[in-house]
């Protein structure tokens, strides 16, 4: 390989030098502000200057809005600016939580909220359990002595990188009435099904598609967990004559538990927030059969002619509370599994 560099190597070196030049120039330009500031502040107080930009963005666009959200939830009307919004106390929450029969969304004042809550519950339950099961099986298969593990691992991981809109369009195209799936059903001698016009089928596919799109991520985490189990344990088990099933129950499962909990909580948090894929795939339909919580918030606050920001904020405070609980559980569990999760 040594000798005179070819054109590609020369171009590469050229780009590298140019990038370095631009990097140095940019950083020196910032230095024109930062270096006099150091003279002014002293070395130790420079720390504040370093955190400042991030803290400003963070404060203005995350921290302040989090506090403001609670205030929004206690005001009503279609005006966006807080000074134009009458304070109503807990009225939004009362309206949100008023039902004569909590088992039936139709009896609730805000029936769409409860329908979204129920859909989210169904979605989270089946999606998370399916996700954990499929990723566990896949990671165990990938952990066997197989040829081309890297290839198969990236096969399962690939959809994770696709944008939710792309994922939804891929499946919308497959699942449509004249789509390839119905053609396969007919070829097998079955009746075609209009998946997107049937509430149960639509929800089933929403769950399956989101598992398809995200399972690779959890498979990777579980695979890392599996690979950290020392092989000696299995060897010792083999000497004692344990069967494969026993080894799974008494070695794999207990040692994988911390990782499993991380996967469970992470997938739970993400399932509760699900929006993009479902919104593009079904639009929440048919009717409101697949409308999830974040879509309710979006529709109430933005996807309508007369936005009800107070209601949307009250719903998102509710969602935030649910997520907070899940996060706290994760932090508790995370202490036991820091090896796998940062």
């Amino acid at each position, binding site marked *: 390989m040594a000798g005179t560099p070819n054109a590609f190597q020369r171009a590469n070196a050229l780009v590298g030098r140019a990038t370095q030049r631009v990097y140095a120039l940019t*950083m020196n330009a*910032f*230095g024109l502000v*930062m270096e006099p500031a*150091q003279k002014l502040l002293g*070395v*130790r107080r*420079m*720390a*504040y200057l*370093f*955190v400042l*930009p*991030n803290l400003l*963005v963070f404060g203005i*666009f*995350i921290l*302040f*809005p*989090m506090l*403001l*959200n609670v205030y929004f939830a206690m005001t009503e009307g279609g005006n*966006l600016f807080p000074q134009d919004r009458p304070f109503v106390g807990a009225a939004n929450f009362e309206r949100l939580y008023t039902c004569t029969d909590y088992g039936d969304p139709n009896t609730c004042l805000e029936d769409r909220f409860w329908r979204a809550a129920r859909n989210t519950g169904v979605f989270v339950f089946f999606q998370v359990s399916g996700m954990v099961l499929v990723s566990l099986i896949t990671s165990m*298969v990938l952990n*066997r*002595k*197989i040829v081309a593990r*890297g290839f*198969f691992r*990236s*096969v399962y*991981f*690939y959809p994770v*990188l696709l*944008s*939710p809109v*792309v994922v939804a*369009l*891929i499946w919308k195209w*497959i699942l449509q009435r*004249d789509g390839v799936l119905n*053609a396969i059903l*007919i070829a097998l001698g079955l009746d075609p099904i209009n998946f997107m016009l049937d509430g149960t089928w639509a929800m089933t596919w929403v769950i399956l598609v989101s598992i*398809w799109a995200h399972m*690779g991520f959890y498979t*990777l985490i579980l695979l890392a967990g599996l690979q950290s189990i020392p092989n000696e344990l299995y060897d010792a088990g083999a000497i004692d004559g344990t069967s494969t099933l026993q080894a799974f129950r008494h070695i794999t499962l207990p040692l994988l538990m911390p990782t499993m909990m991380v996967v469970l909580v*992470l997938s739970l948090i993400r399932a509760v*927030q699900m*929006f*993009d894929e479902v919104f*593009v795939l079904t*639009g929440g339909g048919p009717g409101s059969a697949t409308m999830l919580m974040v879509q309710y918030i*979006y529709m109430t*606050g933005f996807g309508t002619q007369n936005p009800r920001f107070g209601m949307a*904020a009250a719903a*998102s405070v509710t*969602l935030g509370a649910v*997520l907070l609980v899940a996060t706290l559980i994760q932090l508790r569990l995370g202490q036991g599994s820091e090896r796998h*999760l*940062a």
Partner: protein
Amino acid sequence: MSAVARFLTRRQHEGPGRGRARRWSVADVLTYGYLIAGVLVMFGPVAWLVLSSFKTQANLLEFPPTLLPLAQDTAVVDGHPEPLPLFDVVQDDGSTVRLAQVRRIGLVAQMVDPVNPDEVLRVPIERRTPVRNFRLATENYIESFGRFNFATYLRNSVIVTIGATLITLIINSMAAFALSKYRFRGRNAIFLVIIATLMIPISVILVPVYLVITQVGWINSLWGVIIPGAATPTGVFLLRQYMLTIPDELLDSGRIDGASEWRIYWQIVLPLAAPALAVLAIFSVMWRWNDFLWPLIVLTRSEFFTLQVGLNAFQGELNVQWHYVLAMTVLTLLPITVVFSLLQRFITTGIASTGVKG
């Protein structure tokens, strides 16, 4: 062929000349069955999208669909300015001839023999079958660039992705530098607040962030998409943990040489933190390129749409023009696919070790 078969059936730790191969167990068969089914299920839908995106509009409307993109052959016939579609026609005596169709009137088609274009034949339409061959309808791609502002969306997505990633890298690494290399009052409080919001998604604070964006005047501005997500808690956390491993002595020796704190940051710490920066850069590109809900709210005028928002807008139209939507979907997933195939190992190990994701 046998070499290929041997390669495909080979298992790890088992090469040529290493004794008789172990027999295939049931578990092996199940394993490879699962893996191959996995390839079909994971890649199949994407492959079907790519195949479909190369079909002509007529080919797309067919049911059942054809596997490969097929297009009808045409022939240029004297006396007709446009190329005419070709059909195989069954004649009365049972033989077949290849004719070009001039026009169709009800159940009868007027056809001509391309060799002898003067004589117009009248053929019942059930007697003719179109002559079709494999052809990639690249016009779907070319035309979708011209229509629907696709180029504008692409430009917006590129600006948002690159701009946001650069800003994220700079401000996150500055904050991580301060949090890992300085002792100052409030350091732990700042770090705790950042960690606490690690799991708070923007969907929970949609309304108030929208208000802030409106106040700043960033509705229908790419800044409104770029800035709010730039102070990622994930990024600060990731970089801080990495910078903690950089020895303080390096910084001190820089100070002895008279370097300013800023110079220490960009000439010593940042180059050493390059692996962590690369992981964050990849994540940021992924997050921003695929971002949907936030741009959907901030951008309401189509000249500011990003690819994802634009794509959603067409697929929601009453008459979905699938031949364009599919082509644009392929173009949207192309950059991510290229990046992934180049950096695949890096991304998967990065995610497995940090447990973060978009």
